[in-house]
């Protein structure tokens, strides 16, 4: 790495070398039994330079031509965008704990046992269910050095387990599932299987809703599948800068219900999305995005922040192609104090949404969402009476979150990057097939 930096400094004004090496071991169960054990090793090196004021970029993975990195970066810099930022000269970073050495010592046998336990518990409830399960452990090392003396090194561990169940009666199919992740090893499967068993229990009977507007309770996974994707786009500094975010010019304004608060937070110890610094070496921080309904901030990387005449929020993230862009780390939605049961009890006729399929594939910039209720339940006189099917829900996130009846006290992680409670919305459009 030092060699590449030294060569790059001779060819350009500024340079940054980013290197990541990763190892992971997924253990996979298919059709209720152990099927695959994998081991994946990978590494890549990315070089970013500023030459004649313009950014050049090259990336190489594995042992392929790291010697060509400098010449490729120089070639692309000829066409590159003007660099508006300075690389950080930071060498000391906040102490955010993301590595637990115990993860590395978890044996394959232990991982297989966890997977067997997941499958056995779910099958114990529904003998006919077909399960896919995965237990995964991994470690990642990140190193960044740049021409301004900035240097970052950290190691991260990750452990995850999850299960999906598929239950078929004639041509009726039911999907249930849950997963959990941490930088610590996970030794208990209960938290995951409890969620799945509850889904199976609630979906036992089928129920029908009429087509109309009605109250809807989004569970944490319902919130994650239906409401979060438009928000992740709208708070992205790049989209704000282009004027394509509907809230981009509304800092300080009350856009959402007072009960709605949201922050981006990569500083929570032992979470897979946490890190001491972003992928360009800017120290991590917690960024409030919505405070009691008012727009507070957006997320930025160095270049976007410079163009927007503000500071990077430490959200510079490299996507799979290596390109740097602002991206959320972990979106944390502040819980309220209403229990899920209290929300359901309050509804005369309505819908609980656990998973909305296809919600993020429309015009998410506008906040519109529309999807099929893959898992959801009808509420009748304050009680869940059964699973709904052939049901489509549509709405606009900004209209929906302007008036929230209640926010749940049941916040939990949904995947690595969303922590949310349930939300109870008074009126949502529901269309049902006759």
């Amino acid at each position, binding site marked *: 790495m030092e060699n590449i930096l030294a060569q790059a400094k001779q060819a350009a004004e500024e340079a940054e070398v980013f290197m990541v090496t990763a190892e992971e071991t997924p*253990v996979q169960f*298919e059709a209720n039994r*152990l*099927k*695959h*054990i*994998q*081991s994946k*090793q*990978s*590494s*890549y090196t990315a070089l970013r330079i500023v030459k004649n004021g313009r950014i050049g*970029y090259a990336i*190489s*993975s*594995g*042992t*392929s*031509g790291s010697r*060509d990195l400098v010449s*490729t970066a120089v070639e*692309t810099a*000829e*066409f*590159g*965008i003007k660099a508006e930022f300075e690389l950080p000269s930071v060498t000391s970073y906040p102490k955010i704990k993301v590595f637990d050495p115990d993860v590395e010592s978890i044996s394959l*046998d232990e991982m*297989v046992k966890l997977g067997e336990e997941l499958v056995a518990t779910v099958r114990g409830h529904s003998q*006919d269910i*077909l399960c896919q399960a995965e237990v995964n452990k991994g470690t990642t090392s990140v190193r960044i050095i740049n021409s301004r003396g900035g240097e970052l090194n950290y190691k991260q561990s990750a452990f995850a387990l999850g299960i999906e169940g*598929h239950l*078929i*009666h*004639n*041509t*009726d*199919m039911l999907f249930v599932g849950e997963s959990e992740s941490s930088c610590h090893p996970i030794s208990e499967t209960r938290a995951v299987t409890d969620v799945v068993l509850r889904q199976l229990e609630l979906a036992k009977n089928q129920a029908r809703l009429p087509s109309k507007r009605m109250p809807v309770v989004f569970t944490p996974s319902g919130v994650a599948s239906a409401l979060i994707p438009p928000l992740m786009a709208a708070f992205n500094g790049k989209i704000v800068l*282009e*004027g*394509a975010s*509907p809230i981009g010019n509304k800092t300080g304004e009350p856009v959402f219900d007072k009960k709605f608060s949201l922050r981006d937070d990569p500083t929570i110890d032992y979470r897979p999305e946490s890190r001491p610094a972003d992928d360009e070496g800017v120290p991590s921080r917690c960024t409030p995005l919505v405070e009691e309904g008012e727009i507070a901030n957006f997320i930025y990387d160095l270049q976007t922040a410079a163009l927007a005449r503000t500071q990077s929020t430490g959200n510079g993230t490299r996507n799979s*192609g*290596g*390109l740097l862009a602002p991206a959320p780390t972990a979106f944390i939605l502040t819980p309220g104090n209403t229990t899920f049961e209290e929300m359901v009890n309050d509804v005369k006729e309505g819908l609980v949404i656990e998973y909305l*399929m*296809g919600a993020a594939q*429309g*015009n998410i*910039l*506008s906040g519109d969402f*529309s*999807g*099929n209720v*893959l898992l959801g339940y009808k509420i009748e006189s304050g009680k869940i009476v059964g699973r709904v099917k052939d049901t*489509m*829900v*549509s709405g606009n996130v900004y209209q929906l979150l302007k008036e929230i009846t209640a926010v749940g006290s049941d916040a939990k992680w949904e995947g690595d990057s969303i922590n949310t409670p349930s939300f109870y919305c008074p009126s949502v*459009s529901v*269309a049902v*097939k006759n």
Partner: protein
Amino acid sequence: MTNIEEAAQRLAEIINRHRADYIEAHLEESQSTYITYRGKELESIGKTSSVGGNVRALVKGGWGFVSFNNLDNLPDRVTLAVKQAELAGGKKIKLAPVEPAIDTVLTEADSNPAAIPLAKKKLLLDEYNDIIWAVPKIQTSVISYGDGRKKSIFVSSPGSYIEQERADVTLRLTAVTTADNEIQQVGLSLGSRGDFGKVTGLHQQVEEMSRNAVGLLSAPQVKGGEYTVVLDPVLAGVFVHEAFGHLSESDFVYENERLSDIMALGREFGSTELNIVDTATIPGLRGSYRYDDEGVPATKTYLISEGKLVGRLHSRETAAKMKEKPTGNARAVSYRYPPIVRMTNTYIEPGTATFGDLIGDIKEGIYAKNWYGGTTSMEMFTFSSGEAYRIRNGKIAEQVRPVTLTGNVFKTLKNMDGIGNDLDMNQGGGCGKGGQVPLPVSNGSPHIRIRHCLVGGS
């Protein structure tokens, strides 16, 4: 000899020394270029090169898989894959027999996007971006261009050694418009098997796309409910991929007795006019190849013939388990993943109806065009259009907001009561499954009509 050729030859020797039911290895070398624009300015331009490989071993029905992008320590990689397979194994399984092949498949001469200078690529994208921005009320534009070339080598313990090259070009353009609190966008996706010419000369389409994005600002949203819908070939292609294609991937079916019962060959899914095909054998399409990632030759597979289920897509394992012939549909998006059952080029064969026939007797309906995306849970699927219009009294009427459509595979295909005569393949898509995304595929269809289709709305 290149690095990966050397590694492939070493691996061919090493895997023969191991005791496993089956071992295969993949080596891969690729270069790619990407150029993105956001707004008036170029956002990024860069090049990526990659080398890597994997070893996959089968012992008593358990698979071990080791991927790496450091080509040292190859014997250890094989040992680890075999050890993992032993640990995962329980009951012995069969793989459908396939003749070992020794072959080299090179890309066509006009398929080397890497040979085209960056300056020429950038010039073309500049032209497209200028066209977008020349349309009034444009708020921003997003352009993302990528090209790549990949050489892969497959070796297996029964003695296959297959070297294949492929090239790929993709282009996605989006125009975003705003007015008051409204934000609308229209996109255009194209792709080719390495032929840069296929993404040139789109100036008129780019302008239409931008004007459409402006038109959407004043378009109303339809009320949610059931409609008769006519889909254009692009959206109908996404429909056939999502609504039926995924269900025909037999890795969902082969260890699932109940689903196998539902998906029994001969089951009626649609009218006698309905024929659905998946094939990797058509030259020049993005989903095409000569051998899949298990070294099985590509085939043409009828999934539905005259409305009845007649075939499905297989890997060697699923074919053997279901006692059917392998179809050559095991594909991996890169060396980082094991091959799984995937589609290639999937389409509805053309019927006889003209567009006029399809809309002529619709009193009130929706004409949905172009795509945002689609997804499936096998029984249920959703797909969303990029544009939509009302149909009134047999004529295309005013523009409405793009719609999301949903359906149930066992009912919706039966509700398809009109198939056009104008098959068109869309090369701009990428498919995701099991974390492996985007896999180059193409979808196609003529215009089709579906009765009682559930549409989301206000």
